[in-house]
């Protein structure tokens, strides 16, 4: 078993769902953004409420309560598991089986911030995220939630517009298809020598008249992406 950061879920139908777990560093930064937003709102509001005297103070405390305890919950439940900070880092809260998070678990994980914050600055939560296998703080462990990345496209597909598609003459497993596609999309990142070196590995499976191995592999990659 090789080291990875993936959360795998086997469904009864036999298909595997997977998502990349998000760890301490992006989560801390996402939290920092949320904190800045909340502090910003409270500062602006505090200034306005100065003119309202004691009523203002009351309103101010109500808003503080709502922001502190309901801001993350509402965003997590009604905005696909993402607070504004999490959106910036493209991460979201989901249940351990990768289903969207509902009100109950979201409330649990956010109420337990009180435990994670102990004694100061979320020290307990940080240690918990570092130590647990799926990067969970205490609130996550109690609510059965994890934080994962939303799927993203790692490659820019415009780089292979000039490539000519090649129809492969062999069968390929899913992993091999991904390797061909990655090779095609990786154009311009790897040096030409290196591309040639890697493409030559699969020379035994190419048609005998293939002249340029890397053009062949790249062409097959493009073909696999749907070009004909």
């Amino acid at each position: 078993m090789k080291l990875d950061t993936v959360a795998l879920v086997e469904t009864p139908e036999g298909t595997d769902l997977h998502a990349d777990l998000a760890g301490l560093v992006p989560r801390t930064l996402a939290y920092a953004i949320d904190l800045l937003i909340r502090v910003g709102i409270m500062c602006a509001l505090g200034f306005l409420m100065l003119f309202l005297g004691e009523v203002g103070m009351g309103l101010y405390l109500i808003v503080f309560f709502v922001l502190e305890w309901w801001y993350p919950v509402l965003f997590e439940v009604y905005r696909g598991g993402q607070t504004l900070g999490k959106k910036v880092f493209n991460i979201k809260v989901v249940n351990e089986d990768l289903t969207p998070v509902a009100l109950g678990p979201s409330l649990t994980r956010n109420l337990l911030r009180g435990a994670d914050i102990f004694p100061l600055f979320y020290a307990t939560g940080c240690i918990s995220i570092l130590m647990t296998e799926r990067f969970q703080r205490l609130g996550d462990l109690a609510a059965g939630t994890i934080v994962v990345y939303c799927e993203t496209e790692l490659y820019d597909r415009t780089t292979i517009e000039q490539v000519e598609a090649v129809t492969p003459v062999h069968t390929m497993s899913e992993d091999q298809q991904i390797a061909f596609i990655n090779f095609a999309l990786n154009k311009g990142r790897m040096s030409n020598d290196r591309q040639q070196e890697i493409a030559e590995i699969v020379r035994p499976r190419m048609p005998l008249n293939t002249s340029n191995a890397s053009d062949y592999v790249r062409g097959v990659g493009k073909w696999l992406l749907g070009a004909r």
Partner: protein
Amino acid sequence: MQLNTLIIETRLRTAWSSIDLGIVLGRMFWLRGFFLYLVVAIPVYALTRLLDDSHSVLPYFILWWCKPLFERPILFFMSRELFSNKTSFSQTLGYFREWLFSGIGWILSVRRLSISRAMYAPITLLERPASRQYSQRAAVLGNKFSSESVWLTIVLFHVENFISISLLVVFVMFFPEQVDISLAWLNDLRVNNSYIDAVFLLVMAAIAPFYVAAGFMLYISRRVELEGWDIEICFRDWMADYKGRSTTELVSNDV
């Protein structure tokens, strides 16, 4: 370089995901990393005790400045373990010539100032380029992921200090009121106090395996992408499989 001996799943990752993988690696080798860090750091700590109280934060500053030096043995054994070369605590110490001297002047001077040093430390230790090649190499690798490596340092530096302060606060909170522990630092944080420096050093050592591994994984991820490691591994497995199968076919035909 034997890519098939890698202990990590090689696939294309974002910078954040690379850092997360580093955290997993750091957790796996945490104990060894923690103690190796202390082995190098404690002599420096002992030296800083020679300074008297008038030097306020200087001892802490010295420890902080020497961090890249303390992190060296961790990076060294992790770079070997990454390719399944088992390197124990004592073996790492035995190989001290490999990790202690090369580029030590650089990492404690100019390169100490780089906020993204975790990502570039493997260049100095593992590739050992001449200084001009170093900047070219750093530019190529830092073409992507450089801002994330800065954030890595910022976040883990804060986590480290937050945990240190938390530990000290917990200590004070749980101490009976009747006993006067006269913690002078509560009144004056600039006081040079062996105990406080020791707590900070222990937490530095506890965070270091994660920090080193995360930076190392940023470096490795860039190489995976630039050199197509993921593709090479897949192609080689495929060909090994293919050749294996065609030989068995030949053999069975002969029989």
